Protein backbone atom coordinates (compact mmCIF):
# COMPACT_ATOMS: atom_id res chain seq x y z
CA UNK A 1 0.00 0.00 0.00
CA UNK A 2 2.84 2.36 0.88
CA UNK A 3 4.64 1.50 -2.35
CA UNK A 4 1.56 2.14 -4.38
CA UNK A 5 1.15 5.45 -2.59
CA UNK A 6 4.72 6.53 -3.26
CA UNK A 7 4.50 5.48 -6.81
CA UNK A 8 1.37 7.51 -7.18
CA UNK A 9 2.95 10.57 -5.66
CA UNK A 10 5.89 10.32 -7.98
CA UNK A 11 3.69 10.12 -11.02
CA UNK A 12 4.61 6.55 -11.78
CA UNK A 13 1.60 5.71 -13.88
CA UNK A 14 -1.84 4.36 -13.21
CA UNK A 15 -2.11 2.23 -10.15
CA UNK A 16 -3.90 -1.02 -9.97
CA UNK A 17 -6.94 -0.43 -7.79
CA UNK A 18 -7.45 -3.79 -6.26
CA UNK A 19 -10.01 -4.54 -3.62
CA UNK A 20 -11.48 -1.08 -3.71
CA UNK A 21 -15.14 -0.26 -4.11
CA UNK A 22 -16.24 0.71 -7.60
CA UNK A 23 -16.70 4.49 -7.68
CA UNK A 24 -17.59 5.36 -11.24
CA UNK A 25 -19.59 6.71 -12.79
CA UNK A 26 -20.43 9.44 -10.30
CA UNK A 27 -24.00 10.36 -11.02
CA UNK A 28 -25.72 13.44 -9.67
CA UNK A 29 -29.46 13.31 -10.21
CA UNK A 30 -31.74 16.32 -9.81
CA UNK A 31 -29.54 18.10 -7.26
CA UNK A 32 -31.41 21.04 -5.77
CA UNK A 33 -30.20 23.24 -2.94
CA UNK A 34 -32.23 26.11 -1.50
CA UNK A 35 -31.24 28.73 0.99
CA UNK A 36 -33.54 31.45 2.29
CA UNK A 37 -35.95 30.78 -0.54
CA UNK A 38 -33.25 31.17 -3.21
CA UNK A 39 -32.39 28.31 -5.52
CA UNK A 40 -28.62 27.88 -5.33
CA UNK A 41 -28.60 24.67 -7.33
CA UNK A 42 -31.57 23.94 -9.52
CA UNK A 43 -32.14 20.37 -10.64
CA UNK A 44 -28.54 19.65 -11.66
CA UNK A 45 -27.92 16.23 -13.16
CA UNK A 46 -24.63 15.00 -14.54
CA UNK A 47 -22.47 11.91 -14.79
CA UNK A 48 -18.70 11.88 -14.30
CA UNK A 49 -16.51 9.04 -15.53
CA UNK A 50 -13.13 8.07 -14.20
CA UNK A 51 -10.78 9.15 -17.00
CA UNK A 52 -11.23 12.76 -17.98
CA UNK A 53 -10.31 15.74 -15.87
CA UNK A 54 -13.55 17.57 -15.29
CA UNK A 55 -13.44 21.31 -14.90
CA UNK A 56 -16.46 23.04 -13.41
CA UNK A 57 -16.83 26.58 -14.68
CA UNK A 58 -19.29 29.39 -14.44
CA UNK A 59 -19.60 32.98 -13.29
CA UNK A 60 -19.58 33.96 -9.64
CA UNK A 61 -22.56 32.64 -7.77
CA UNK A 62 -23.29 29.95 -10.31
CA UNK A 63 -23.12 27.25 -7.64
CA UNK A 64 -19.76 25.67 -8.59
CA UNK A 65 -18.33 25.34 -5.10
CA UNK A 66 -21.67 24.21 -3.77
CA UNK A 67 -21.91 21.47 -6.37
CA UNK A 68 -18.46 20.28 -5.35
CA UNK A 69 -19.52 20.17 -1.71
CA UNK A 70 -22.64 18.22 -2.60
CA UNK A 71 -20.57 15.69 -4.55
CA UNK A 72 -18.22 15.41 -1.56
CA UNK A 73 -21.12 15.00 0.86
CA UNK A 74 -20.40 18.16 2.85
CA UNK A 75 -23.75 19.65 1.91
CA UNK A 76 -26.90 17.55 1.81
CA UNK A 77 -29.09 18.63 -1.13
CA UNK A 78 -32.73 19.52 -0.55
CA UNK A 79 -33.58 17.23 -3.42
CA UNK A 80 -31.67 14.83 -5.62
CA UNK A 81 -29.12 12.10 -5.13
CA UNK A 82 -25.46 11.45 -5.74
CA UNK A 83 -24.59 7.86 -6.63
CA UNK A 84 -21.23 6.21 -7.01
CA UNK A 85 -21.29 3.26 -9.42
CA UNK A 86 -25.02 3.08 -8.91
CA UNK A 87 -24.96 3.16 -5.11
CA UNK A 88 -25.39 5.91 -2.57
CA UNK A 89 -22.22 7.12 -0.89
CA UNK A 90 -21.18 4.92 2.04
CA UNK A 91 -18.20 5.20 4.37
CA UNK A 92 -15.96 3.28 2.01
CA UNK A 93 -16.80 5.54 -0.92
CA UNK A 94 -16.43 8.67 1.13
CA UNK A 95 -12.97 7.60 2.24
CA UNK A 96 -11.87 7.45 -1.38
CA UNK A 97 -12.45 11.15 -1.91
CA UNK A 98 -10.34 14.13 -0.95
CA UNK A 99 -11.08 17.79 -1.24
CA UNK A 100 -8.87 20.86 -1.50
CA UNK A 101 -10.39 24.19 -0.54
CA UNK A 102 -9.85 27.60 -2.03
CA UNK A 103 -8.30 28.81 1.22
CA UNK A 104 -6.06 25.98 2.38
CA UNK A 105 -7.12 24.80 5.85
CA UNK A 106 -3.81 23.83 7.40
CA UNK A 107 -3.34 22.61 10.94
CA UNK A 108 -1.20 24.72 13.25
CA UNK A 109 1.60 22.24 12.93
CA UNK A 110 4.64 21.69 10.80
CA UNK A 111 4.23 20.89 7.13
CA UNK A 112 5.26 17.29 7.83
CA UNK A 113 2.81 16.96 10.71
CA UNK A 114 0.03 18.17 8.43
CA UNK A 115 0.73 15.24 6.10
CA UNK A 116 1.20 12.74 8.92
CA UNK A 117 -2.12 13.81 10.35
CA UNK A 118 -4.04 12.09 7.55
CA UNK A 119 -1.83 9.02 7.30
CA UNK A 120 -3.34 6.20 9.28
CA UNK A 121 -2.56 2.57 9.88
CA UNK A 122 1.22 2.86 9.86
CA UNK A 123 3.77 2.96 12.63
CA UNK A 124 5.39 6.25 13.45
CA UNK A 125 8.61 5.76 11.50
CA UNK A 126 6.73 4.59 8.43
CA UNK A 127 4.39 7.55 8.66
CA UNK A 128 7.29 9.97 8.83
CA UNK A 129 8.94 8.30 5.86
CA UNK A 130 5.71 8.38 3.87
CA UNK A 131 5.14 12.03 4.77
CA UNK A 132 8.66 12.93 3.70
CA UNK A 133 8.30 11.26 0.33
CA UNK A 134 4.97 13.02 -0.22
CA UNK A 135 6.58 16.35 0.72
CA UNK A 136 9.43 15.60 -1.68
CA UNK A 137 7.00 14.95 -4.51
CA UNK A 138 5.35 18.29 -3.75
CA UNK A 139 8.82 19.89 -3.67
CA UNK A 140 8.23 20.96 -0.09
CA UNK A 141 11.05 19.02 1.62
CA UNK A 142 12.87 22.23 2.52
CA UNK A 143 9.91 23.41 4.62
CA UNK A 144 9.02 20.05 6.19
CA UNK A 145 9.67 21.33 9.70
CA UNK A 146 8.30 24.83 9.21
CA UNK A 147 4.93 25.75 10.64
CA UNK A 148 2.46 25.17 7.83
CA UNK A 149 0.79 28.49 8.34
CA UNK A 150 4.01 30.43 7.83
CA UNK A 151 4.56 29.05 4.34
CA UNK A 152 3.93 31.21 1.28
CA UNK A 153 0.49 31.09 -0.31
CA UNK A 154 1.71 28.81 -3.08
CA UNK A 155 3.47 26.48 -0.66
CA UNK A 156 0.41 26.34 1.54
CA UNK A 157 -1.82 25.32 -1.34
CA UNK A 158 0.72 22.75 -2.52
CA UNK A 159 0.84 21.38 0.99
CA UNK A 160 -2.94 21.20 1.10
CA UNK A 161 -2.96 19.28 -2.19
CA UNK A 162 -0.14 17.03 -1.01
CA UNK A 163 -2.15 16.28 2.11
CA UNK A 164 -5.21 15.48 0.00
CA UNK A 165 -3.06 13.19 -2.15
CA UNK A 166 -1.71 11.50 0.95
CA UNK A 167 -5.23 10.18 1.39
CA UNK A 168 -4.66 8.33 -1.88
CA UNK A 169 -8.06 9.40 -3.25
CA UNK A 170 -9.89 7.99 -6.24
CA UNK A 171 -11.57 11.36 -6.63
CA UNK A 172 -9.75 14.63 -5.98
CA UNK A 173 -12.05 17.62 -5.70
CA UNK A 174 -10.42 21.04 -5.93
CA UNK A 175 -12.27 24.26 -5.27
CA UNK A 176 -10.49 27.13 -7.03
CA UNK A 177 -7.12 26.08 -5.63
CA UNK A 178 -5.25 28.77 -7.57
CA UNK A 179 -7.59 31.69 -6.94
CA UNK A 180 -5.04 33.57 -4.85
CA UNK A 181 -1.79 32.34 -6.41
CA UNK A 182 0.79 33.93 -8.67
CA UNK A 183 1.47 32.38 -12.10
CA UNK A 184 4.46 30.31 -10.98
CA UNK A 185 2.60 28.85 -8.01
CA UNK A 186 -0.40 28.23 -10.25
CA UNK A 187 1.79 26.22 -12.61
CA UNK A 188 3.25 24.23 -9.73
CA UNK A 189 -0.25 23.39 -8.52
CA UNK A 190 -1.31 22.38 -12.01
CA UNK A 191 1.70 20.05 -12.20
CA UNK A 192 0.57 18.41 -9.01
CA UNK A 193 -2.94 18.03 -10.37
CA UNK A 194 -1.57 16.42 -13.48
CA UNK A 195 0.59 14.00 -11.57
CA UNK A 196 -2.40 13.11 -9.39
CA UNK A 197 -4.32 12.30 -12.56
CA UNK A 198 -1.38 10.26 -13.78
CA UNK A 199 -1.53 8.49 -10.45
CA UNK A 200 -5.07 7.42 -11.22
CA UNK A 201 -7.21 9.98 -9.45
CA UNK A 202 -10.32 11.45 -11.00
CA UNK A 203 -9.91 15.24 -11.02
CA UNK A 204 -12.85 17.56 -10.49
CA UNK A 205 -11.63 21.15 -10.52
CA UNK A 206 -13.64 24.31 -9.99
CA UNK A 207 -12.12 27.37 -11.61
CA UNK A 208 -13.12 30.55 -13.35
CA UNK A 209 -9.69 30.97 -14.86
CA UNK A 210 -10.33 30.23 -18.53
CA UNK A 211 -6.63 29.73 -19.22
CA UNK A 212 -6.36 27.13 -16.50
CA UNK A 213 -9.47 25.42 -17.77
CA UNK A 214 -7.97 25.23 -21.27
CA UNK A 215 -4.77 23.74 -19.87
CA UNK A 216 -6.40 21.14 -17.65
CA UNK A 217 -9.89 20.33 -18.81
CA UNK A 218 -10.83 17.16 -20.62
CA UNK A 219 -14.49 17.99 -20.19
CA UNK A 220 -16.28 21.06 -18.88
CA UNK A 221 -19.30 21.34 -16.67
CA UNK A 222 -20.71 24.83 -17.06
CA UNK A 223 -23.08 26.21 -14.46
CA UNK A 224 -25.03 29.40 -14.65
CA UNK A 225 -27.42 30.68 -12.02
CA UNK A 226 -27.52 27.32 -10.26
CA UNK A 227 -28.46 25.43 -13.41
CA UNK A 228 -26.37 23.14 -15.52
CA UNK A 229 -25.87 25.04 -18.77
CA UNK A 230 -23.84 22.34 -20.44
CA UNK A 231 -21.46 19.41 -19.91
CA UNK A 232 -19.25 19.18 -22.97
CA UNK A 233 -15.84 17.76 -23.99
CA UNK A 234 -13.26 20.53 -23.56
CA UNK A 235 -12.19 20.92 -27.19
CA UNK A 236 -15.78 21.40 -28.27
CA UNK A 237 -16.55 23.68 -25.33
CA UNK A 238 -13.76 26.08 -26.10
CA UNK A 239 -14.34 25.97 -29.87
CA UNK A 240 -18.10 26.42 -29.79
CA UNK A 241 -19.99 26.24 -26.52
CA UNK A 242 -23.52 24.96 -26.79
CA UNK A 243 -25.05 27.39 -24.29
CA UNK A 244 -25.45 31.10 -24.54
CA UNK A 245 -24.31 31.44 -20.94
CA UNK A 246 -21.00 29.74 -21.70
CA UNK A 247 -20.52 31.77 -24.87
CA UNK A 248 -21.02 34.98 -22.92
CA UNK A 249 -18.64 33.76 -20.23
CA UNK A 250 -15.89 32.87 -22.68
CA UNK A 251 -16.32 36.19 -24.45
CA UNK A 252 -16.04 38.02 -21.16
CA UNK A 253 -19.61 39.27 -21.21
CA UNK A 254 -22.00 39.32 -18.32
CA UNK A 255 -24.72 36.86 -19.19
CA UNK A 256 -28.32 37.95 -18.82
CA UNK A 257 -30.50 34.86 -18.86
CA UNK A 258 -32.84 34.89 -21.81
CA UNK A 259 -31.22 38.02 -23.21
CA UNK A 260 -28.92 36.45 -25.77
CA UNK A 261 -31.22 36.89 -28.74
CA UNK A 262 -31.18 40.61 -28.38
CA UNK A 263 -27.49 40.73 -29.12
Amino acid at each position, binding site marked *: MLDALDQGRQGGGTRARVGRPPMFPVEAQGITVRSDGRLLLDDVSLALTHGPRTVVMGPNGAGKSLLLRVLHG*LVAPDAGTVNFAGRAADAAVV*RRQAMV*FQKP*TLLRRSARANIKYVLGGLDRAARTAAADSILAAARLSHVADS*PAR*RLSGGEQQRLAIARALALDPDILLLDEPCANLDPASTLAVEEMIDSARDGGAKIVLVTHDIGQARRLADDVVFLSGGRLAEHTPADRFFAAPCSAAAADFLAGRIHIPGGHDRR
Partner: protein
Amino acid sequence: MVDLGSIIGLALGLVASGDTELYAIILLSLRVTLTAVLIGCLIGLPLGAALAVLRFPGRGAAVAVLNSFMGLPPVVVGLVVYLMLSRSGPLGVLGLLYTPTAMIVAQAILVTPLIAALARQSIADLHGEYDELFRSLRLGPARQIATLLWDGRYSLTTAALAGFGRAIAEVGAVIIVGGNIEHVTRVMTTTIALETSKGDLPLALALGMILVAISIGVNAMVLSLNRTAQRLAHA
Protein backbone atom coordinates in the same frame (compact mmCIF):
# COMPACT_ATOMS: atom_id res chain seq x y z
CA MET B 1 -0.06 54.30 60.01
CA VAL B 2 -0.35 52.27 56.83
CA ASP B 3 2.03 53.75 54.28
CA LEU B 4 3.12 51.97 51.15
CA GLY B 5 6.86 52.24 51.69
CA SER B 6 6.79 50.53 55.07
CA ILE B 7 4.45 47.83 53.72
CA ILE B 8 6.83 47.04 50.87
CA GLY B 9 9.67 47.03 53.37
CA LEU B 10 7.72 44.65 55.57
CA ALA B 11 6.94 42.37 52.63
CA LEU B 12 10.57 42.28 51.52
CA GLY B 13 11.67 41.70 55.09
CA LEU B 14 9.29 38.75 55.41
CA VAL B 15 10.58 37.18 52.22
CA ALA B 16 14.22 37.85 53.06
CA SER B 17 13.92 36.53 56.60
CA GLY B 18 13.50 33.03 55.21
CA ASP B 19 10.69 32.47 57.69
CA THR B 20 9.96 28.77 57.25
CA GLU B 21 6.36 29.22 58.32
CA LEU B 22 5.73 31.80 55.61
CA TYR B 23 7.37 29.62 52.99
CA ALA B 24 5.35 26.60 54.10
CA ILE B 25 2.18 28.67 53.69
CA ILE B 26 3.24 29.86 50.25
CA LEU B 27 4.11 26.31 49.17
CA LEU B 28 0.77 24.99 50.41
CA SER B 29 -1.05 27.75 48.52
CA LEU B 30 0.78 26.83 45.35
CA ARG B 31 0.31 23.09 45.87
CA VAL B 32 -3.41 23.37 46.49
CA THR B 33 -4.08 25.82 43.68
CA LEU B 34 -1.83 24.22 41.07
CA THR B 35 -3.33 20.80 41.75
CA ALA B 36 -6.83 22.25 41.55
CA VAL B 37 -6.00 23.98 38.26
CA LEU B 38 -4.50 20.76 36.94
CA ILE B 39 -7.70 18.88 37.73
CA GLY B 40 -9.68 21.79 36.34
CA CYS B 41 -7.72 21.54 33.08
CA LEU B 42 -8.04 17.76 32.83
CA ILE B 43 -11.82 18.09 33.10
CA GLY B 44 -12.45 21.58 31.81
CA LEU B 45 -10.44 21.56 28.60
CA PRO B 46 -12.06 18.46 27.05
CA LEU B 47 -15.44 19.61 28.35
CA GLY B 48 -15.03 23.04 26.77
CA ALA B 49 -13.80 21.49 23.53
CA ALA B 50 -16.72 19.05 23.48
CA LEU B 51 -19.17 21.92 23.90
CA ALA B 52 -17.45 23.73 21.05
CA VAL B 53 -17.53 20.74 18.70
CA LEU B 54 -20.60 18.68 19.46
CA ARG B 55 -24.05 19.71 18.32
CA PHE B 56 -26.80 18.35 20.54
CA PRO B 57 -30.15 19.55 21.81
CA GLY B 58 -29.72 21.72 24.88
CA ARG B 59 -26.23 22.75 23.88
CA GLY B 60 -27.10 26.44 24.08
CA ALA B 61 -28.46 25.96 27.57
CA ALA B 62 -25.38 23.98 28.60
CA VAL B 63 -23.13 26.81 27.39
CA ALA B 64 -25.23 29.38 29.24
CA VAL B 65 -25.03 27.34 32.44
CA LEU B 66 -21.30 26.90 32.03
CA ASN B 67 -20.78 30.62 31.44
CA SER B 68 -22.78 31.54 34.52
CA PHE B 69 -20.84 28.98 36.58
CA MET B 70 -17.72 31.00 35.79
CA GLY B 71 -18.95 33.31 38.52
CA LEU B 72 -19.76 30.68 41.15
CA PRO B 73 -19.35 32.35 44.55
CA PRO B 74 -16.46 30.67 46.37
CA VAL B 75 -18.37 30.62 49.68
CA VAL B 76 -21.22 28.71 48.09
CA VAL B 77 -18.84 26.19 46.58
CA GLY B 78 -17.09 25.95 49.93
CA LEU B 79 -20.36 25.36 51.70
CA VAL B 80 -21.48 22.66 49.27
CA VAL B 81 -18.14 20.88 49.47
CA TYR B 82 -18.26 21.21 53.26
CA LEU B 83 -21.69 19.57 53.38
CA MET B 84 -20.42 16.78 51.10
CA LEU B 85 -17.24 16.11 53.05
CA SER B 86 -18.62 16.71 56.53
CA ARG B 87 -18.75 13.59 58.70
CA SER B 88 -22.53 13.76 58.44
CA GLY B 89 -22.34 14.28 54.67
CA PRO B 90 -22.41 11.64 51.94
CA LEU B 91 -18.59 11.55 51.65
CA GLY B 92 -17.94 11.98 55.35
CA VAL B 93 -16.38 8.53 55.74
CA LEU B 94 -13.41 9.68 53.68
CA GLY B 95 -12.40 12.02 56.50
CA LEU B 96 -11.27 14.66 54.03
CA LEU B 97 -12.71 17.74 55.70
CA TYR B 98 -10.08 20.17 56.99
CA THR B 99 -7.37 18.72 54.76
CA PRO B 100 -5.57 20.20 51.74
CA THR B 101 -7.38 17.61 49.63
CA ALA B 102 -10.71 19.19 50.57
CA MET B 103 -9.34 22.57 49.54
CA ILE B 104 -8.18 21.13 46.23
CA VAL B 105 -11.64 19.68 45.61
CA ALA B 106 -13.33 23.01 46.35
CA GLN B 107 -10.97 25.00 44.17
CA ALA B 108 -11.17 22.46 41.36
CA ILE B 109 -14.96 22.87 41.38
CA LEU B 110 -14.46 26.60 41.36
CA VAL B 111 -12.06 26.73 38.40
CA THR B 112 -13.35 23.91 36.18
CA PRO B 113 -16.30 25.88 34.76
CA LEU B 114 -14.08 28.91 34.23
CA ILE B 115 -11.46 26.90 32.38
CA ALA B 116 -14.11 25.04 30.39
CA ALA B 117 -15.93 28.22 29.38
CA LEU B 118 -12.77 29.99 28.28
CA ALA B 119 -11.56 26.87 26.49
CA ARG B 120 -14.89 26.55 24.72
CA GLN B 121 -14.58 30.07 23.35
CA SER B 122 -11.05 29.67 22.07
CA ILE B 123 -11.69 26.16 20.72
CA ALA B 124 -14.85 27.36 18.99
CA ASP B 125 -12.81 29.93 17.07
CA LEU B 126 -10.29 27.31 16.01
CA HIS B 127 -13.07 24.87 15.17
CA GLY B 128 -14.52 27.47 12.81
CA GLU B 129 -11.24 27.36 10.90
CA TYR B 130 -10.88 23.59 10.90
CA ASP B 131 -14.51 22.58 10.45
CA GLU B 132 -14.50 22.01 6.69
CA LEU B 133 -11.29 20.02 6.87
CA PHE B 134 -12.69 17.86 9.66
CA ARG B 135 -15.86 17.23 7.74
CA SER B 136 -13.96 16.53 4.55
CA LEU B 137 -11.81 14.01 6.41
CA ARG B 138 -14.91 12.64 8.16
CA LEU B 139 -13.27 12.79 11.58
CA GLY B 140 -15.19 11.64 14.62
CA PRO B 141 -15.74 14.00 17.56
CA ALA B 142 -12.98 12.44 19.69
CA ARG B 143 -10.32 13.01 17.03
CA GLN B 144 -11.64 16.52 16.41
CA ILE B 145 -11.49 17.41 20.10
CA ALA B 146 -7.99 15.98 20.46
CA THR B 147 -6.79 17.91 17.42
CA LEU B 148 -8.33 21.18 18.58
CA LEU B 149 -6.94 20.84 22.10
CA TRP B 150 -3.48 20.08 20.77
CA ASP B 151 -3.41 22.77 18.11
CA GLY B 152 -5.00 25.30 20.46
CA ARG B 153 -2.75 24.48 23.41
CA TYR B 154 -0.89 27.78 23.43
CA SER B 155 -4.05 29.84 23.63
CA LEU B 156 -5.52 27.41 26.18
CA THR B 157 -2.82 28.36 28.70
CA THR B 158 -4.76 31.60 29.06
CA ALA B 159 -7.71 29.59 30.36
CA ALA B 160 -5.45 27.71 32.78
CA LEU B 161 -3.93 30.96 34.02
CA ALA B 162 -7.37 32.47 34.53
CA GLY B 163 -8.22 29.43 36.64
CA PHE B 164 -5.00 29.86 38.58
CA GLY B 165 -5.78 33.51 39.21
CA ARG B 166 -9.24 32.72 40.50
CA ALA B 167 -8.08 29.89 42.75
CA ILE B 168 -4.96 31.46 44.24
CA ALA B 169 -6.92 34.59 45.16
CA GLU B 170 -10.03 33.06 46.71
CA VAL B 171 -10.52 32.69 50.41
CA GLY B 172 -14.23 31.91 50.77
CA ALA B 173 -14.08 28.25 49.78
CA VAL B 174 -10.78 27.20 51.34
CA ILE B 175 -11.50 28.76 54.70
CA ILE B 176 -14.73 26.75 55.03
CA VAL B 177 -13.46 23.37 53.89
CA GLY B 178 -9.88 23.82 55.10
CA GLY B 179 -10.69 25.47 58.42
CA ASN B 180 -7.56 27.66 58.24
CA ILE B 181 -5.73 25.23 60.53
CA GLU B 182 -2.21 26.33 61.30
CA HIS B 183 0.48 24.19 59.62
CA VAL B 184 -2.21 22.06 57.95
CA THR B 185 -4.60 24.09 55.84
CA ARG B 186 -3.47 27.65 56.32
CA VAL B 187 -2.75 29.26 52.97
CA MET B 188 -1.90 32.79 51.88
CA THR B 189 -5.45 34.06 51.57
CA THR B 190 -6.66 32.60 54.87
CA THR B 191 -3.57 33.99 56.59
CA ILE B 192 -4.37 37.41 55.19
CA ALA B 193 -7.95 37.07 56.42
CA LEU B 194 -6.68 36.03 59.86
CA GLU B 195 -4.20 38.90 60.13
CA THR B 196 -6.94 41.30 59.06
CA SER B 197 -9.12 39.86 61.82
CA LYS B 198 -6.34 40.45 64.28
CA GLY B 199 -6.23 44.04 63.11
CA ASP B 200 -2.67 43.65 61.91
CA LEU B 201 -3.39 45.47 58.68
CA PRO B 202 0.23 46.19 57.69
CA LEU B 203 1.12 42.50 57.95
CA ALA B 204 -2.05 41.55 56.05
CA LEU B 205 -1.18 44.01 53.30
CA ALA B 206 2.42 42.84 53.13
CA LEU B 207 1.22 39.24 52.77
CA GLY B 208 -1.22 40.43 50.11
CA MET B 209 1.67 41.96 48.24
CA ILE B 210 3.63 38.74 48.40
CA LEU B 211 0.59 36.87 47.07
CA VAL B 212 0.24 39.26 44.15
CA ALA B 213 3.96 38.93 43.43
CA ILE B 214 3.64 35.13 43.42
CA SER B 215 0.71 35.38 41.06
CA ILE B 216 2.64 37.65 38.72
CA GLY B 217 5.63 35.31 38.93
CA VAL B 218 3.59 32.25 38.02
CA ASN B 219 1.95 34.07 35.12
CA ALA B 220 5.25 35.33 33.80
CA MET B 221 6.82 31.91 34.11
CA VAL B 222 3.99 30.12 32.34
CA LEU B 223 3.83 32.67 29.55
CA SER B 224 7.57 32.56 28.92
CA LEU B 225 7.55 28.74 29.02
CA ASN B 226 4.68 28.92 26.59
CA ARG B 227 6.61 31.15 24.23
CA THR B 228 9.71 28.99 24.45
CA ALA B 229 7.71 25.83 23.82
CA GLN B 230 6.01 27.46 20.88
CA ARG B 231 9.38 28.37 19.41
CA LEU B 232 10.88 24.94 20.04
CA ALA B 233 7.86 23.21 18.53
CA HIS B 234 8.60 24.95 15.26
CA ALA B 235 12.39 24.81 15.45
